[in-house]
Structures are given as structure tokens and as C-alpha cells.
């Protein structure tokens, strides 16, 4: 897959939709492409976080360790951004992410990610929106679980 195709993928992700293409090229060019086989872990809860992942193809589960054992709290598909919390706040990974199919990702380094957020406020807004949405989903799931 070439750089231009990757730029197209990035453009399909809402938070990158309005960013000029040379910046997306920089993002694509400076990120690495990693492929995970089914069942492989991208990272585990408690690891140091130094990069975020964009799913180019495939699916992954987000799993949290609880007292009752691992609990799958979310499921990510193509175009999703994963792992940005750890690089935003310098906390260890808050969850484990495991590939459920063969998974093709773009790995964005912490430094590049910050640069983009600083330079393009709309990425920051998009991330806020995404995080809020995720918080709401998590809350809903907690309500579900406590009701059950």
C-alpha cells in the first residue's frame, strides 16, 4: 500500500477529514505500518504507552482486567484510533487491545501525535468528541452491567 492510499484512509477518519494533504502525508510517512496476526496483543494494560494506533484493516477488542477476570469493553473496526489516552496523559495503558482478526495498523508516535494536535485544533476537538463518546458508551455499559 502506498503513501497516497494511506492518506486516503486517514482522510476517511473524521478527525483528519479537514487536514491538508501534506500534513496527512507527514503523518502517514512518519508512522510505521504494523500487521498483527489474529489473537496477538497490540499492548497490555499497565504497559508504558509511546504510540497510538489507527486501524487500517481488521478488528480488535479492548479488554479490561477486572477482579472477575478480563472483560471486553469495546470493539474497534477500520478507521478507529486506539491507544491515544496513554500518550495524551502519560499514564500506563488503561486497557489491553487484542487483534480479533488479522489486523493492519498505522502506528503513530507520541511526538508526532502531539505535534498534530498542537498544530490543528480541529484534531483536538475531534479527539475530545471521540473521548466523550467513548465515555458515554462506557457509562452505558456500566449501567447495563450493574442493572444485570
Amino acid at each position, binding site marked *: 500500500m502506498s503513501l497516497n492510499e494511506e492518506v486516503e484512509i486517514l482522510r476517511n477518519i473524521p478527525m483528519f477529514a479537514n487536514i491538508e494533504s501534506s500534513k496527512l502525508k507527514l503523518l502517514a*510517512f512518519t508512522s510505521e*505500518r*504494523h500487521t498483527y496476526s489474529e489473537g496477538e496483543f497490540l499492548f497490555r494494560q499497565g504497559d508504558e504507552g509511546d504510540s497510538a494506533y489507527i486501524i487500517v484493516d481488521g478488528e480488535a477488542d479492548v479488554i479490561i482486567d477486572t477482579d472477575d477476570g478480563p472483560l471486553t469493553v469495546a470493539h474497534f473496526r477500520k478507521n478507529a484510533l486506539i491507544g491515544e489516552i496513554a500518550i495524551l496523559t502519560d499514564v500506563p495503558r488503561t486497557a489491553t487491545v487484542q487483534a480479533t482478526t488479522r489486523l493492519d495498523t498505522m502506528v503513530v508516535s507520541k511526538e508526532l501525535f502531539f505535534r498534530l494536535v498542537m498544530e490543528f485544533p480541529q484534531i483536538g476537538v475531534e479527539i475530545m468528541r471521540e473521548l466523550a463518546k467513548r465515555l458515554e458508551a462506557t457509562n452505558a455499559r456500566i449501567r447495563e452491567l450493574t442493572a444485570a
Partner: protein
Amino acid sequence: MAEDRAEGNRPGRLPGPETPGYRPNVPLERSIFRFIMKYSKRQQLVVLALTFISWPIIYLTLELPKAIIDQAIGAREGWARDVLGAEMEQITFLMVLSFGFLFFVILSGGVKYVLNVYAGRLGEQMLRRLRYMLYSRILRFPLPHFKKVSQGEIIPMITAEVEPVGGYIGTATSTPLYFGGLLLVYLGFIFAQDVYLGLAATALYPLQIYVIPKLQKRVIALGKDRVREVRGLADNIGESIAGIAEIHANDASVYERAGIARRLDRIYTIRYEIFRRKFAIKFLNSFMAQLTPFFFYAIGGYLVIAGDMTIGALTAVLAAYKDLSSPWKELLNYYQLQADIKVKYEAVIEQFDPPGLFDETLQLTDDAGPESMGRTLDVASLAYSEDGQSKSVDGASFSVDLDRHTAIVGSGSSGRDELALLLARLVKGTGGRVDLAGRHLDDLPEPFTGRKMSFAGPIPYLFSTDLRANLDYGLRHRPLRSPAGTDAGTAQRNRYIRDAHAAANIDADPVADWVDYDAAGVSDREALDRKCVDILRLVDLGDDLYRFGLHGTIDPEDRPELAEAMLKARAALRSRLDETQQSALVEPFDRARYNTNATLAENLLFGTPAGAAFDIDRLAEHPFVRQVIHEAGLADTLLEVGRQLTETMVEIFADLPPGHAFFDQFSFFGSEEMPEYQQLLARTAGQSPEEMREDDRFRLRSLPFKLIPARHRLGLLTEDIQAKALKAREIFAATLPDMLRGEVELFDPDRYNRAATLQDNILFGKVSYGEANAAGKLSALIGDVLDSLSLRDAVMAAGLAHSVGVGGARLSAAQRQKVNMARGLIKRPELFIVNEGISNLDGAAQRRVLDAVLGEMKGRGVIWSLHRPGFARNFDHIVVLKGGRAVEQGSFAELDKEGSALRELLETE
């Protein structure tokens, strides 16, 4: 000690430390003249003889032209001359004289050549002798002396400062004699003409002889100062290099610069003063030289006018005086040189005579001392004081069993460091004694202490070679075997020995095999390597060694079986990858396929550079590669790819601030080159390749060589270009000139690649960029494969070739200490003395290594000066040191009680 002479003489021994002409413990001659006379009296006589021989020849070369002109050419009347009883025509006579002249010119030149070569060689021999003597002195310096003199001071003494001495020695006796003789001859001639004029000509000599040395004296003193200041400069520079981290960390670079500037100023003022005085002396000299002709004109002229002297006599005297000035000048020059050399020599010699030098006979002897160390080491009222006042060891008395392990504990100021050094005889006690094997420790030869004892201090030194040579350093005492392929017995070797003896240097061959395998309890090199691996594993260095091995190279001709084994591992890894469906982790090298995880350069070369010619980073510059590219039809294609690549880079990186980390990490050119490439793009826009400037073409064509499709994902290297690159690869391999064949190891699935690391040989491909954690997964797989083939030890043995860097700088402080412990164990000492030794290791590793070393030394002696008293639990016997005295001794259980000194130490830990 001669009665103890042990089996020193093995069959087939190579020359040992005995050196003809070199006497151990010989004092250095205080004056250079005595040095010259002592070591080159005979050669100086030869130089003199050659000088005397040259005199009549030179005389003849001066005399014959006169005869040719006066007698052969100038003669007119009735020719026929008697020469040696034969009659001769004028022409024949002229020819005889002319050829005679030619003969003596050649002879004179020949004698001069022989004399110069002989004198030059003599000077070099004497210089070599002097340097060797000085170096030998360093090996005898008492260790505390090195706290006072620095490397920076000592090195220039042996290298630069004595250098002019050699040139001087060759001519030391011949120059004054030759020119002195010449002077006397001319003086005799003048005096024969007229005594008064003779007196006039030499009237100023006494003044010159009196005044010049006076003036010279100050120059000599300044010369001494200069030597001292230059040494100080060397020392300052050495300190700056050693303390470079501290200089930066403390913003002290300005301060250091100021210090150096002041030093340079001192050297400058001294040199300036020297020049001023030197030229003043010169001025005075030439003034006096011209004063004499003044007298000749004035007084001689008066005498001629008065009729007391003929004008012919005056001109003759003037001519003679002109001849006189040249040898006189030479003599004065010689005097100045000699004075300068004398200062230099003495300034060096006085630095090489500290008190307390080691006895050299104990170092150079073949007497290995008593057969064994015996059962105990006894310390009686041992005292040590570095400055002669405060005693760091003060009457320590105790006894140590040499089949048990003894710990010495005490606070940092208890004298525990010094005691360890004293017991290892690295410093000498200032009172009391240490007895070992029924002898005084100080009297035992170094071949005894250095072979039966090991010592490991807290700050080990590793020599700038590989791990292997550092580990077997304790086994290299004498040359034992002359390895195959060396020049033993050849003319070259005999020349080496002859010249070594002429300068009283040791003649032992440093490239012979010095390793004493018996001492390590093994039979040969291979067994010793296995032992090294085991011992390094023991001191917790096994994993590092394995990594060194994997990332090192081997020569398949030296180690054919290992190369073969690596090919097996290559095959095994491939099938393991296939079995576990992980073959995507590596993209193997395939002659028929483009490797998308490799650069274009690597794809084209399809091999590993074995020399400098095909450096991957500069491959595009190589003329042969350029030719191949043209033949494969890639030239214009690469130009276009280069343009697109430049455009992309400019587009992506143009907005980044200069110096941003991304440039280094990702870009194909640095931020400072950005404007150049922008101009290049503008300049070449719309140009056909032919229209472009040559260096533009070259630049654009070079860039794509670094492209890795799987990593950069720019889509620039299309299928078509890849196909052309494969063609270029074929052309490269097929037309590679013989001259360049050794410069590249082509990839071949069935052959070991000598230029690649062991790991790359096993992988035989590139690690895939796209696969997550590929490197980690592969290293685990390679480990499995090597274990299943029982090759891990062989790879570790290959790691012994790892270069440790200058002073071991490529290893961490902890690794250096581990290597040092291993070095101490490998020679299987009867007694291992350790001073801290493992203090840089982390806590858990310290305990592991301590246990392992004690386990290995079971039944043999260990004396360990511990930095952590808690470790004393592992020892059979403990000596507690306080204020330089042994205040408690016994087992841990005996000493660990309320109020004991040991308990006190344990509680403060």
C-alpha cells in the same frame, strides 16, 4: 632463589625474557655522554675511523682540480711527463687526472654515504635502546608513583622529547673531531704565514669561548622550563579528555580554555625569550667573525704599506681565514645542539628514577618460584604508609588458610583497599612482612605471584582488543609456541632478532602463541574458548556474550564447522518459521525476487559489502555501479524516481522547523540541505536528463538508493523498476571485475556470508517492517533454533571476538568488572585476591557472582576485601579491619555477636 628453579624450560621454548646486552636493574646514566660511551663506544670508534678515512679523500678532491689546472692544462712547453715511471702525453695526463678526480669524488661521496648511514643507524639504535630502557622503567614504577605523574606527562617524554637524542648520538663524537681537526689545520697554515696575523685571527676566540656559554646558560635554563611547560600542556589536554563529561556538566569549558590559554602563553613567552637570546648570540657571533677581517684589513694593510709584509701573504691569510670561519661556526652550532640535547636527556632521565622501583630480576626471571603456595599466608605486623606519615595499614597481623575463603571487612578508611594491594604485592609494605610458601612475599618472583595468584580490583582495565585476548591475558607469560605460518627461522625473523639485540630490546615474538593452556587446565585454543564461555556464564555475562556472538562476524576459513552449523541454523529457522506460520517475519534473499524490506542499494548489490568500495550508503557513487545502472536502463528511471522522491520530501518536510528530529529519523536529506533540494527541483523542472547539470543528475540518482518499499511506502519503486533492478543485479554479478570481487560477499542460500553477522547469516533475509514485534519474535525463534541444534555455546564462543573498545569503553562498568573476575578465574589461581571486584553490579547480580566465584574457587584460597560486610556470611573466615589493624578474626558465627566490630559494620550497612 636460584635453588628453587622450577620447570622453566619446556621443550621447544621460544626465546624468553633474557636479552643479550640488557642487564636487569641497570641504573640510567645521568649524563648523555656516559650513556653514549657506555653503550656505543665501539660504534663511535667506527664513526671516527670513517671520519679519518674521509679526510685524505676530501683533500684529494680539493687537490686534484688544482693539479689539473696548473699542471695538465696550464703547462705549455715540451710535453712528456714522468708519472710513476711511465711517460705520458699532456692529453693522457689530463685524462688520468680527470678520471682520478671523478674516482675520488665518487669515493668521497661513497664514504660520506656509508658514514651517514652508519651514524644514522647508530643514532636510531641508541634511541631505541633508550626508549626501551625508559619503558622498562615504567613497568618497574611503584604503583603509588602513578598517583603523582600522569600519562600525559610520561608519554611525550618517551615519544617526542627523546627523539632528537637519536640524531645527535650518531654524530656526537665525529662532528667536533672533524671540524676541530679542520680548524687546527687552517690555524696552523695561518700561523705558519705570520704569527701575529695568526694571533689576530684567533684573538677573539677566547672571548667567544667565554661569552657564548654564559649567554647559552640562560637559553638552557629556558629550554628546561619549556620542556616542563610542554609536559604540563600534554597533561592539561589529557585531563580535559578524561574529564570531558565533567567539563560539560559544569559549564567549565570556558574555564578550561582559559587554563590552556595561560599554559600556551607561558610556552609562548619562553619560546620568544629563547628566540631573542638565540638570535642575539647569533648576532654576536657573526659580529665577532667580521671583527677579525677588520683587524686584517687595518693591521695587515698597515704592515703591507710599511713594507713588513707582502700583499701575497695577506691575501693568503684572508683566504685561510675565510676557510676558518666555516668549521668554527659548525663547532659553535654543535656546542649549542649538544647543550640542548643534554638538557632534554637529563630532563627525561630524572623523571624515571623514583624511589622504590620494583626489582627487575623478579620480573624477567624464568624462575617460577616454589612449586606451590603452601597452606597459609601469614601477615605479621604489616604496615603501609603512602606519604611516610599516616599509616593506612598499621601493624596488621593475621593468618589465612589457602584452602579456605577469607573475607576482609572494614569501613572505607580501615585500610582494606591497601591491604588487598599489599597481599597481591602490587604495593610494597613499609613495615612488617607477608610470608607465603615459606618465603617473604617481596622476594618471590613475578612468574610465581602473577601465575599462582589472581587479583581483581574495583576499577579493572581492559585492553583495547577483543574479549578473548582480555580473558587469556593471565595466561600470556612467555612465548610458548611458534604458530604455523610465522616467520620463525626466516631471514626476516633473524633480522628482527639481530636488530633487537643491537638495541638491547627483547627479541620475543609477540605474535607467537603465548597462551599457557596447561595453566588453564585445557589442551588447546578451542577448549580454552569453551572454558571462557563457561566462566563468563558463571560471572553472569552469558546473555551479553551470546548477543556479541550473534552480532559478530567470523571467518569461515578459520571456523569452517561453525560456518557450516550456521547454514544448518538458517535452514532450521526457515522451517521453524514455516511450521509456525510466521514466515512473514522475514523476507528472505531470493536472487529472482526484489526484496521489499531492503534498500535499492542492497537489492542491487545483492550481497554484503566486505570492504570500503561498496559502502551501502555511497553505493550510487561507485563508477562500476553507475555503469551497471546505465546498462540496465535504470539511469533515467532513477533520475525520475529521485525527482519524485525529492518533491515528496520537500512537500512533507518543508514546514518543519530546521533541526527537527524527524529529519534525522525519516527524511532522505537533512534540514540544512532543504533549500538546496528546493532549488534543485526548480532548476531541473522540465529539463530532460541530458540538459541537467552533471551533479544534479548525480544527486537525484543517488537518493532512491536508500528507498525501502516496505518501510517508506511511497510507491515510487514500481514493479517495472523492480524488474529493472533485478536485471541490474544480474549484470552486477556477471560483470563484476576480479579486482572488486573481494569487496562484496554475494547472497547465496547455500554459502556462509563472511561479511555478515552470524544473526544475518541465520536470517538470510530482511526483517519485515510491517510485522509487529518482528525483531523480538525472531530473536526468540533464533534462540530456540540454536538451542535445538546445540549451537548456543558455539555462538557464545564467537562472541569472544567482540572488541571491547578503548580501555573497555564499549562495555558497561558492570560488564568490565565481570570480565575482570572471569580473567582472574581462568588461570586457575591458588589464591584469588579480590578488592571489591563486583561493586558496580546490581545487588542481585553481586550475590550471584559472589556465590559463583566462591563455588568455582572451592578448596582454593580466596581473600576478598568486601564493600558490603553482609557478604561475609558466605566466607569461612573473616578478618575485621579497623584503623589498619586486624581487630577481630573468626567465623561469621563466632564474630556476629553483641558489641563486636563485625556487628557494628553489619548494622551500619
